[in-house]
């Protein structure tokens, strides 16, 4: 029988401003946070130190002083492994790739228990200064960055186009931010938890028109650890776990912009990757009980919900406005609070999405619990969703 993988344990720190400035007398050290999280997640899973045979880390930000963070942490924990120990990087997809690679090590038989983990510290660096680096990650650094594009400016152009094609309004988009803030108010890991109104979201200062401050992700720091195991190990522990039922990936062969005019807001990569994942899980979009989307801006959550088939094309904004994607609605999306309110420490963001799915599917989400949640979906992305990595997880009691 083919091997299968499950999430059996998780840990994370609340997303927020943890990074200390270089001149602070008392510094926050990344490895001190990470070692505690490993112990916590492994304890949550109910396995032992010797069981862990692979560790896949997300690449730390360049602001993290300790280099070779992954092998440094192996020393801090005196962990010896036969599988793999590595740091992976893929911009917004980084944490989804770490999870995927940890799954692979189990599927290949290199490990029966593996960790996917990482820390992203950046909040002590100003947004304008951080953008000097992030502006070079989207498009062509010579032909596009020279014009002043920033990562979220591309999503803003998605919003302009979507509003043009479907007549959606700023209020429709803002409904996503209001809904996510409500979800975040119920999540102890979330960065912003005070409820906001539609009027407040629309009244925020513009960041990249038509998106205002609450339509775009806040900046913050985070760290999380997932414990993955072969299904045999998961079953032997006698506790609920979240089984990986399907996985899909697609890169559309363009980087940020397609020079052959296409439907830019169709998010073809998410469409194709999800089709693969649904087929592998032998389900349809209608079977999904909740989705944790990599959606840095309000508009992105709308477009991804459509590309995944959770909402009809052109109907995602209306669905959000009508409360269909709210807790208790037809298809709850971003029950963690999403990137706009739970927070977006980009290189570990998807780890938090898997943490949320694991809590929901193990019945540990408290006030955010989606009743009878059985199937959950998570996404990771590159660029303007030029690539998508999608996992479908199932609750196993």
């Amino acid at each position, binding site marked *: 029988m083919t091997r299968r993988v499950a999430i059996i344990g998780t840990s994370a720190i609340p997303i927020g401003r943890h990074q200390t400035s270089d001149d602070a007398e008392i510094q926050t050290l990344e490895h001190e946070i990470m070692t505690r999280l490993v112990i916590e997640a492994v304890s949550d899973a109910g396995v032992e130190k010797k069981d862990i045979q692979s560790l896949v880390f997300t690449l730390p930000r360049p602001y993290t002083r300790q280099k070779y963070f992954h092998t440094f942490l192996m020393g801090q924990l005196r962990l010896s492994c036969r599988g793999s120990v590595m740091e992976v990087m893929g911009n917004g997809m980084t944490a989804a790739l770490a999870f995927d690679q940890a799954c692979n090590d189990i599927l290949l038989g290199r490990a029966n228990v593996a960790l996917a983990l990482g820390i992203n510290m950046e909040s002590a660096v100003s947004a304008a200064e951080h953008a000097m680096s992030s502006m070079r990650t989207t498009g062509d650094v010579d032909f596009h*960055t020279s014009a*002043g594009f920033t990562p979220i400016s591309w999503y803003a152009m998605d919003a*302009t186009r979507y509003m*043009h094609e479907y007549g959606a309004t700023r209020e429709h988009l803002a409904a996503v931010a209001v809904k996510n803030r409500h979800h975040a108010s119920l999540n102890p890991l979330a960065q912003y938890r005070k409820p906001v109104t539609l009027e407040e979201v629309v009244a925020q200062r513009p960041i990249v028109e038509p998106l205002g401050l609450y339509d775009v992700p806040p900046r913050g720091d985070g760290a999380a650890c997932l414990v993955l195991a072969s299904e045999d190990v998961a079953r032997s522990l006698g506790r609920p776990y979240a089984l990986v039922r399907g996985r899909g990936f697609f890169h559309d062969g363009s980087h940020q912009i397609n020079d052959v005019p296409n439907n*830019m807001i169709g998010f073809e990569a998410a469409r194709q990757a999800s089709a693969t994942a649904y087929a592998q899980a032998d389900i349809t979009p209608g079977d999904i009980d909740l989705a944790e989307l990599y959606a840095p801006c309000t508009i992105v959550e709308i477009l991804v919900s459509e590309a995944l088939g959770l909402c009809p094309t052109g109907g995602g904004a209306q669905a959000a406005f009508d409360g269909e994607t709210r807790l208790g609605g037809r298809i709850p999306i971003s029950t963690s609070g999403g990137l706009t309110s739970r927070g977006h420490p980009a290189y570990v963001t998807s780890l938090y999405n898997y943490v949320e799915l694991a809590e929901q599917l193990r019945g540990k989400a408290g006030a955010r619990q989606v009743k009878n949640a059985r199937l959950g979906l998570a996404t990771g992305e590159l660029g303007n969703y030029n690539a998508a990595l999608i996992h479908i997880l199932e609750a196993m009691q």
Partner: protein
Amino acid sequence: MNARISIPCIDVQGRRSYPPRVSAFTQTFWNSLAQGGWMTTCCQNCQKQTFPPKPVCPHCWSPRVDWSELSAHGTLYSWTRIHAAPTAFASEAPYAVGIVDLDSNIRLACRLVERPSIDFKPGMPMEMVVLKFEDGPLFAARPLSTG
């Protein structure tokens, strides 16, 4: 080659905030642009244009590419105005950028130049222009004058 297509040039004071690098290959594009030329590479094998210019055709992978003219006009596909800018662009903020579909079926992204009392709107006709900074050119687009 000398491009026959010539696009309007606008003199801009100061230097480019984040100048592009120029290679032995792309200097043909940038040098031409500085003179108001507007061109890219076209594959001799499959006849497809691509933008930005590339030394290998991304469609059929042929290295046999020639320089050819781009359309000077197109349609605005989408746009935004950036208020939160990177440090290097802070003095220019807010500034508009957009995506233009050229009549020759090439999609590109560039800075947008405002015209008084004309709002940017998807679907509106656009024309490409050269922004001639003191240290070199950048390409941009502005609403096509209807006057």
